[in-house]
């Protein structure tokens, strides 16, 4: 009964949605004077950032990203708040399984490479596909690997929270410095350099690096909290 109801509801919803979507001329632009044209020109021209998505994420719509970072930060806080049960004791985490020596050694070998890859991805966020979020996630997978392989692997909560706080503060402070320096929040107050150079794009790489650190630390924290959770 419930299934039939839900199915019919979904059918109506889907039909209406699809009907409208089919009116979109797929694969063609049909709106005039959209903002994307501006972004596509201004990004290489004004900001000297090769990756337009990055310039949108960090600068044109940098405010969204600040919010996004906050969402992550909140998710971590929320998770630890929701699961919080008295004080954590380090190393007191549930033993899910014991990994074999091969896995342990392999992860140990892979771990630096993963971290390095992550760092590369967020440092080159304004040049190549990728960026702070992607890099941060890669870094977190490194820690996830370690946490899964080693039952007694420790990540210092203090370090994590210091890193994530500092990264967040960096982002917000750069925005505020922009406000003081150029009159608008997140103003790109550094020299923009030359397109496709590593040191180009003014504050964009700095912000993205901060985001990378923050995402990495936060995702690690999330995983750690979830694993470390007492029953």
């Amino acid at each position, binding site marked *: 009964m*419930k299934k039939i*109801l*839900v199915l019919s*509801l*979904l059918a*109506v*919803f889907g039909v*209406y949605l699809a009907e409208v979507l089919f009116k979109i001329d797929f694969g063609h632009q049909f709106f005039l004077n959209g903002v994307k044209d501006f972004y596509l020109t201004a990004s290489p021209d004004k900001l000297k950032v090769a990756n337009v998505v990055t310039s949108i994420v960090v600068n044109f719509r940098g405010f969204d990203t600040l919010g996004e970072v906050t969402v992550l930060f909140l998710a971590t806080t929320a998770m630890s708040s929701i699961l919080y049960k008295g004080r954590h004791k380090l190393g007191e985490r549930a033993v899910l399984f014991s990994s074999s020596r091969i896995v342990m050694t392999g992860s140990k070998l892979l771990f630096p490479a993963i971290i390095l890859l992550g760092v590369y991805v967020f440092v080159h966020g304004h040049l190549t596909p990728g960026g702070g979020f992607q890099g941060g996630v890669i870094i977190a997978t490194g820690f996830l690997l370690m946490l899964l392989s080693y039952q007694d692997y420790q990540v210092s909560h203090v370090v994590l929270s210091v890193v994530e706080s500092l990264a967040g503060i960096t982002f917000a402070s750069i925005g505020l410095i922009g406000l003081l320096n150029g009159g608008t929040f997140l103003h790109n107050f550094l020299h923009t350099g030359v397109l496709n150079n590593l040191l180009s794009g003014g504050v964009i790489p700095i912000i993205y690096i901060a985001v990378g650190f923050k995402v990495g630390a936060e995702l690690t924290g999330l995983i750690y909290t979830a694993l470390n959770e007492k029953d």
Partner: protein
Amino acid sequence: MIYILFSILLGGAILTFLANKISGLLRDTFFLLTMLGATLIFYTQLHIGGLVNFSIGSFNLEWGVNSFSWYFSLIVLGLGTLAAFYALSYMKGKENLGFFYFSFLISILSMLGIVMSHDLISFFIFWEMMTWSSYFMVIYSGKNVQKNGINYILFSAFGAYAMLTAIALVYANIHSLSIVEMISNYGQFSPALQTWIPILFLMAFSVKAAMMPLHVWAPGAYSDSPMAYTSVFSGALSKMGIYGMILIFVTMISHLPDDTWFREVFAWLGAITAIMGTLWAIAQDDARKLLAYSSVAQLGYIITGVAIGTDLAMLSALFLAALHALFKGTLFMAVGAVERQTGTVKFSEVTGLIRKMPWTFIASLLAIIALAGIPPLGGFVGKWMLYESLINSNHYILVIAIFFASTSAFLYCYKFLFGFFLGQEEKEWAHVKEAPALMVVPMLLMAGFLVILGTFPGILLKPADTAMQTLGFAPTEGHLWSMSVLFNAWGDQVLLRPLVYAIAGIFLFFLIILTVKGWKNTRYVTTKDISSSGEVPLEHENLTFSVNFYQPFLRAVGPVMKHRMITWYREFGAGMETIFDFTRRIYTGNGQTYAIYVMVFLVIILLLQNTIFG
């Protein structure tokens, strides 16, 4: 001056409330000073016709006194002051006195505010202040709070909201809140509004005036508030409803093309209120309830008078309004005195107080005679004018109805006197003493005034006449009344003075005859010393007849009383609550169901989009 008056009352209320924390004497002093100060200022400093205005919330508020409002302030302040003295003694030793005095003063303030408001918004604000301050009194005792308190506040709010709607309609149409402008622009409203605005206003006023079918709150509320306040509650506060009704009937209804319907309906509602109130009063065992129903009934007469709206009817309504304040104030005070001295207000529990509380008895007796409308007290004057006005304006059946109500009223009148004061004296109540002077004197003052009014109704008719002239009636002095003569439209007249003197003379003559004959030999024996079918009742046997007092009569009117309004309301309320209870089961507690609701909502809008956003 109005500012000062209001600030005195408001400040006095707050000071009294605060002083309660410090000392009882200080509180009493503040309370009394406030009340006296307000009365003094009102009578000495306030001149009729003065207006003050100021603006708040982009509304222009206007306060002022005219003769009409002066008449009602007379009732409020007169009764209020006497009740204040009474309260000092009556409330001694009770809890939360600061709260009581605060509410008392605030309700006096709000009543004065109502009659002095010249704009609708302050009228409404004062109206609501009156409601909640009196609500505090209703729940003061803490008994039946959930039932009577909620009833009262619910009905009051119903009325208030009706009024608010009317005010909003007026404001939306003329962009002014002045009562004067509302009246002067009334003719330009659309016909629908012309009908609905008075109806909405009258709904509000008939709640406070306890008119059928909106009277349900009254018995409970009147009987639950402390008697010191009930005298004001029933005597003055309910008159605010009458005040509003008169205003509406005179200024609006009379301009309606088909006002006869209105008048007939309201007159009949008033009459039915009177009848049903009387019948239910007869059935009560609790003196407070009896008086409460009696108040409902008395207000029914007044409403009828207002609704008929001829010169004489209006005059009688105004006169009865003041008179009702006097005698019902006295009676509630008497009940309060009995309650304070004996601790009960049930007729079936207390008897034979006449020798213990003679002054209370005398006050009650006079008030009852006035209530019953028996000459030579003031009540007769009001009743006479009411009947004559009804007969002269061709409301014959109405006369019968009213007369039936007031004849039946003798039953509960007698029950009141008999229940408390007469009957056998019992050892149980041997310790009872007369109430303190502070309580007795206000009652006696009012009772005395009732006696004077019986001979010289002109004292009260004079201001009533002035008040009516403010409302646009022709002066009536000389052709409807003079100091102690009453006239009707057919030229018939009652010369009160010779009648009263004759009654007094005959009474005294026979009293003297009775007294003189066997003066030496006749001695008082206790009420146990009776011949009851040849047997003398023993000391512990109480033969006083007080349970099922009027059972035969009630049996006779049984069919009418089978249905109680309050039962209907209660069933309605219970039905509503069942529906509500059913409704809240929409919130099943299952998160998925809520999510499905969201989808249902979406799909409904999707399907109806052409209708909704077409």
